[in-house]
């Protein structure tokens, strides 16, 4: 096989193997960083959108639509204000909804939020259009005091079908606050009077709901009503105080008989949210009536109406700048890696001066020498980019695995061919540009002086 320009480039690279490898690794790291950030940016948004699934609107009494979505879909906090059952019926009956699922939050189990709802939640609501609820074990709740546990909550608490749970009224504060003994944050009350039986463990959905437990509304209403009665009975002088989920309840259960569903009044039947889906054509998620339904609901100033998809888009619009900052940082790292290529080649030029002079004598033009160095630089960039793509695929998968394990977010870090090509092309172009200075040095190599005998 004949010697070609590529042979010369290859020999030049292998002659400085350590420098070549470290330069390629530097480029690979920067390319991988850029690709992972780009892929995770898109995938992160998609993962957030999974939580709201096929719901069109969310109604609550939170202060703002964004808060409603963060609380009602992502379990950020238990909503502080409640909707009445009558209000729910009024909303559900007045407008053309495919379904309207009432929800009640405010209880927890070992730090994991509990959502009380109706059995239709598992039939009608989906975390994503293509993801119906699937039970890893057991079934959906059908009666009071039955509970279904999300996959992540089940893994963390060790809950199994048949286990008995005692729910906490309110949400337990973070462990460090409890350890500090903050007297301002009284410990929530655990309802040991009401046994809940685990009847189902959900398969992972890759949404925020994996962290939650689900029970029926009546059970939760009984829990809250019992709490309310005991509070009124034990602290009559504190009557009319606002319903506070995190309030301490130091009381005597023996003095108050346990309530049943028959004891519930309309005042006990409170909700914190309503998941809504308007009528759509079969196979379509869009609805022509959605804007008008949304406007109609918004006219009611006693409720907050949120379009989860819009709020998630807004949220990503807000954090988009941070996102761009990360991408800008990755771009800076890419430029730094190009400088590394330039330094590696620049430092090698002194050693290669004689080789360049010999090639000139053998018939290589200055332009060809220039091209050899620029091509070598671009090749370093290309190899680094190729290694970076492989590293990015592995890193993105690892990051997705960690996000799913720790946050329950299903992130599908798809490296789109478009981004891969753009980043690789940019890397090669930057690398070629970085090779211009060393190439100029090679171009200007004084042949006569470089061929003088050593010593």
């Amino acid at each position: 096989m004949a010697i070609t320009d590529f042979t010369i480039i290859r020999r030049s690279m292998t002659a400085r193997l350590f420098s070549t490898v470290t330069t390629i690794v530097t480029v690979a790291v920067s390319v991988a960083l850029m690709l992972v950030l780009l892929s995770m940016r898109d995938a992160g948004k998609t993962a957030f959108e999974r939580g709201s699934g096929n719901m069109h609107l969310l109604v609550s009494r939170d202060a703002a639509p964004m808060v409603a979505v963060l609380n009602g879909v992502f379990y950020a906090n238990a909503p502080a204000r409640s909707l009445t059952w009558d209000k729910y019926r009024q909303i559900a009956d007045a407008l053309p909804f495919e379904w309207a699922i009432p929800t009640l939050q405010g209880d927890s189990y070992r730090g994991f939020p509990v959502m009380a709802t109706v059995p239709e939640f598992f039939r009608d609501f989906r975390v994503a259009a293509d993801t119906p609820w699937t039970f890893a074990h057991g079934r959906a709740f059908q009666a009071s005091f039955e509970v279904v546990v999300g996959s992540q909550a089940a893994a963390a608490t060790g809950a199994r079908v048949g286990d008995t749970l005692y729910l906490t009224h309110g949400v337990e504060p973070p462990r460090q606050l409890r350890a500090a003994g903050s007297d301002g944050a009284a410990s929530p009350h655990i309802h040991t009077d009401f046994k809940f039986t685990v009847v189902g463990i959900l398969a992972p959905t890759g949404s925020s709901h994996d962290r939650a437990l689900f029970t029926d509304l009546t059970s939760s209403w009984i829990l809250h009503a019992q709490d309310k009665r005991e509070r009124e009975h034990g602290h009559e002088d504190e009557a009319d105080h606002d319903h506070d989920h995190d309030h301490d309840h130091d009381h005597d259960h023996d003095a108050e008989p346990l309530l049943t569903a028959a004891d519930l009044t309309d005042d006990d039947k409170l909700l914190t949210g309503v998941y809504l889906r308007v009528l759509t054509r079969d196979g379509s998620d869009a609805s022509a009536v959605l804007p008008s339904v949304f406007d109609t609901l918004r006219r009611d100033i006693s409720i907050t109406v949120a379009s989860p998809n819009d709020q998630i888009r807004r949220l990503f619009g807000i954090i988009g700048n941070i996102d761009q900052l990360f991408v800008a940082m990755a771009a800076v790292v890419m430029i730094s890696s190009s400088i590394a290529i330039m330094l590696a080649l620049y430092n090698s030029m002194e050693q290669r001066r004689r080789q360049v002079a010999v090639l000139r004598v053998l018939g290589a033009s200055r332009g060809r020498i220039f091209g050899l160095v620029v091509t070598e630089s671009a090749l370093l960039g290309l190899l680094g980019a190729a290694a970076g793509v492989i590293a990015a695929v592995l890193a993105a998968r690892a990051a997705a695995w960690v996000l799913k394990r720790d946050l329950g977010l299903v992130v599908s870090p798809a490296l789109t061919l478009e981004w891969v090509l753009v980043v690789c092309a940019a890397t090669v172009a930057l690398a070629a540009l970085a090779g211009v200075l060393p190439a100029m040095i090679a171009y200007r190599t004084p042949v006569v002086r470089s061929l003088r005998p050593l010593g």
Partner: protein
Amino acid sequence: MPDPALSIRALKFRYASSDAAEAAPPWTIDIPTLDLAPGEHLLLTGSSGRGKSTLLYLIAGVLDLSPPSTGEVRVAGRNIHALRGAARDTFRGRSIGMIFQTFHLLPGFSAVENVMAALMFSDIPAREHRTRALSLLDRLGITTPDRDPDRLSVGQQQRVAVARALACRPALVLADEPTASLDPENSAAAVELIQSVCREQNAALLCVSHDPSLPSRFARRASLDELAAPAPAVASGGAA
């Protein structure tokens, strides 16, 4: 009648002075006329620093003949300094072979690859490069063509350098102190080898050296001072 392998006319060269106010220094090279017929061998002698290597680089066109330097250098009938850029480099690669005092073999390339490196700039089809290089190395007694030159003896390294210089069948071979790195025994053998291969290829040989053992091996020899005289004195005698 074929063009001379080398034809020099009114060549005057000196390195550019860094001090413009300084009086013009004498010419480093001042050769009114010099011709070398195809296949002819000439030994050019002179003390160190006299400008022998400079003359070779001028002939090879790697040193520019820019004002105030003047003159004409023709290799195989082509005025090499009239050629610009890549055209001159290509012409040099195909028409001139150079042998250096310290060989200047390419590091990281085997013996045969060093020879093939010269062929990559020629118009010889690529598929013939390896065969041609191996044949030439075999002719020069290199039995381990795939070995790195660093692992060859000094004598073998020089033979690889000779093979590289002659790989493109040049019209003119320029040898710059080709025996300076060799002991007397190897020197004689090396010059004999260079001359015989040049004869086989009918290549003209211009060898510059201050090795006192060489003049007897060249039928034609001259010093730079002699060439500088209006009527160049060319001594004859000895083996061709």
